[in-house]
């Protein structure tokens, strides 16, 4: 395969940045998208040019570190992570445009690398069950109906990659936040703090500068883990219930 790549290059956060075009050849359909970029980088390095910086780690679709806006879609044309996208999804001679996630809350660090620490701060604001190590009940003392456990699990599979934010025209983080709120609100262990959690996490999400949700569903459509939009409805319910509750949280 021969390809033309239009890649966003930006030296650092304060640099203005811009597209640069590269020609690349000898790409096989079995390569992953990131392996294609590895080839580009070996090529650039060989010529003494700075390689294209992008985030990646596990390359198994689970760590959530890879990102990339490919031809206008987060993680490219398949509903998967970029590391699991293979070149058989592209045609010989195609021009591929590669950009970083675009969102105010995700400042660009360099080239295609963005800072997603806002997600960590949202989890820190309440995305947990407040239990210390030790002194917990036996695991089977808390029976949980399988359907509930499965529903909770579906929400828990979020990998925190940020594709939902990148897909949203408002750069809303509602899908990410609601996935954690749902996972825990569904389980008896998480119910105890569910109201306080919803309030705190939503407040932190707003403070980070993520946009509002207008229910276009782009987040869910692009999510590599198929996190359902219904989680957002559940989050809104929890948040509403918390705001009208007389319980002090």
């Amino acid at each position, binding site marked *: 395969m021969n390809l033309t790549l239009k890649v966003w290059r930006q*030296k*650092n956060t304060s640099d203005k940045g811009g597209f640069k075009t590269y020609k690349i050849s000898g790409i096989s359909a*079995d*390569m*992953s998208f990131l*392996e294609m970029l*590895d*080839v580009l980088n*070996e090529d650039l*390095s*060989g010529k*003494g040019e*700075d*390689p294209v*910086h992008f985030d*990646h*780690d*596990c*390359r*198994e*679709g*689970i*760590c*959530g570190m890879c990102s990339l806006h490919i031809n206008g879609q987060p993680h490219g044309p*398949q509903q998967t992570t970029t590391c*699991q996208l*293979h070149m058989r999804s592209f045609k010989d001679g195609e021009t591929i445009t590669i950009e970083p996630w675009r969102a105010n809350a995700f400042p660009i*660090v*360099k080239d295609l*690398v963005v800072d*997603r620490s806002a*997600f*960590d701060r949202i*989890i*820190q604001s309440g*995305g*947990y*069950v407040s*239990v*210390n*190590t*030790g002194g*917990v*009940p036996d*695991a*089977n003392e*808390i*029976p*949980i*109906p*399988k359907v509930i*456990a499965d529903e*909770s*699990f579906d929400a*828990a*599979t979020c*990998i925190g990659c940020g594709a939902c934010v990148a897909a949203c025209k408002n750069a809303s983080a509602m899908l990410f936040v609601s996935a954690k709120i749902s*996972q825990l609100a569904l389980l008896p*262990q*998480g119910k105890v703090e569910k109201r306080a959690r919803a309030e705190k996490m939503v407040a932190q999400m707003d403070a980070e500068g993520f946009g509002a949700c207008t229910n276009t569903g782009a987040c869910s459509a692009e999510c590599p883990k198929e996190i359902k939009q219904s989680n957002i409805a559940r989050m809104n319910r929890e948040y509403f219930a918390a705001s009208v509750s007389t319980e002090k949280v």
Partner: protein
Amino acid sequence: MKLNSKIPSGPLAEKWTNHKFNVKLVNPANKRKYEIIVVGTGLAGASAAASLAELGYSVKAFCFQDSPRRAHSIAAQGGINAAKNYQNDGDSVFRLFYDTIKGGDYRSREANVYRLAQVSVNIIDQCVAQGVPFAREYGGLLANRSFGGAQVSRTFYARGQTGQQLLLGAYSALSRQVANGKVKLYPRTEMMDVVVVDGKARGIVTRNLITGAIESHSAHAVLLCTGGYGNVFFLSTNAMGSNVTAAWRAHKKGAFFSNPCYTQIHPTCIPVSGDHQSKLTLMSESLRNDGRVWVPKTVEVAEKLRKREIAPKDIKEEDRDYYLETKYPSFGNLVPRDVASRNAKQVCDEGRGVNETGEAVFLDFRDAILRDGEDAVRGKYGNLFDMYQQITGENPYKTPMMIYPAVHYTMGGLWVDYNLMTTVPGLYALGEANFSDHGANRLGASALMQGLADGYFVAPYTVGDYIAGLSYDKVPEDHPEFRKAEEEVKSRVKQLLEIKGSKTVDHFHKKLGKIMWNHCGMARNAAGLTKAKEMIRALKEEFWSDVNVLGTGEELNLSLEKAHRVADFLELGELMVDDALHRNESCGGHFRDEYQTPEGEALRDDENFAYVAAWEYLGAGKDEALHKEALVFENVKLTQRSYK
């Protein structure tokens, strides 16, 4: 220096309980005056940092990824063992202990392994309390499955994403302590050196991966939870960033490195497809519960398959060789990883491999689908099948999967005593970074167990015992030892950038990987290892004279990061070869061609090699000194492992 494993006296079952009672305690009001550094935020690191912070210590947690949640523990698929005996099938702490010792081919410490089995039950309780959504039965209670090398169902799982769910649980506990102000997080920060003052570990020097700033962090104790070194092989199932640097720098500062030659080659990975490949993908070995491993009985049929003249489904039952089931009737497809891997290599070496490269065997779900239906199979393995299809473009519901062994886990690591302390006082190693619990071979679903055992339930006690003997005073970060370490790191950065050679870092990494895989991989022999040692030395020399590291030290610079890591892998590779060469026996993941039974199984030499090899660094270019910790078995009888 004489190694003292500090195993508590008394009967096996009471050692840990007695030890917990005997450790010194730190007054709750004083704990905040002590600072603890935790490097790595995987299962071991995140759980240790969270638990120590909950106790009241001031913790600093470091990771090279952009968030602690990305640590490679997240990729573990199959499950986590615990001796709960919820299935009433005869499991117990002793059985889990026994299986682990035997599975490790009698090259691990009894006391450590017994403690691991004991605390395994607490781990499940802890994770459920955190909201980890383990698989459940319709009655609402937890589900279990059996896993490679075990005849009881003791594995807890969360579909094929157990590592992810456990890590996110530990990450949530860690995040809670960040919010409480008890943990300070340093993402995108790589540890470059350990600082030892008056014989004790008193801090680390780091490089901020965004700005390139070299910084010192002082503390009362340092915990390395930095995972394994599988990426020395270049191609492995490890994440791209997984590296040995933290452990290796500690090694050069006096921490002995144990059993580096014990590497686990996982039997069920997607086969290598070409030279461009950057990593290998594991398919959880839980697949072996229902999938049947086979190759054609004859080379002729295999050749037709490789040329794509026939499809797998065209091969008649009598022409198929279900070699694991035939050879090991009682364990069948569930034999431990080392046995399964070696047999796959053997049938492929005979010319019966099934893909173009001849390095693949089938893992076939045809019979499971006929028996249980496609939906049931999808329910258990859906995400793994999807992943397989995404990578290979083939549908495993219709045609058998192709698998081949790949480097997956490293049993070797920093030598630690019963308290998980290395040979440097105040420096600890937890999880895969230490050598302690898996002997020469790790059983499936035991890595997650060990990482969390060390972090949640062992280190919080044993680190306190050490801290209680220290004064509150911190070594100032401008102490000459910190300054010296900073200068060394800076000069190394400078040195790498100034070589300006002609070859990329990956060029060297790939070459090293090939040497290791060919000569120190699934099977080793003296001639190959001797040759490998020379090749690695030559490659190391070439690296330091001809590598091309671009960019500057004061920015995000991926090729510089990689260069640091590859430089350390080159040194580790040589030690692995030395270790493999000196161990004149076969055991677990270490298979020496010269030492095998007539049936081709690993032949141990308990008389001469029932010890832990602990290597001491003596300086650049020098061979390392070997120390031995004898392994004493009082509770199990050493037998030849048999899974027949």
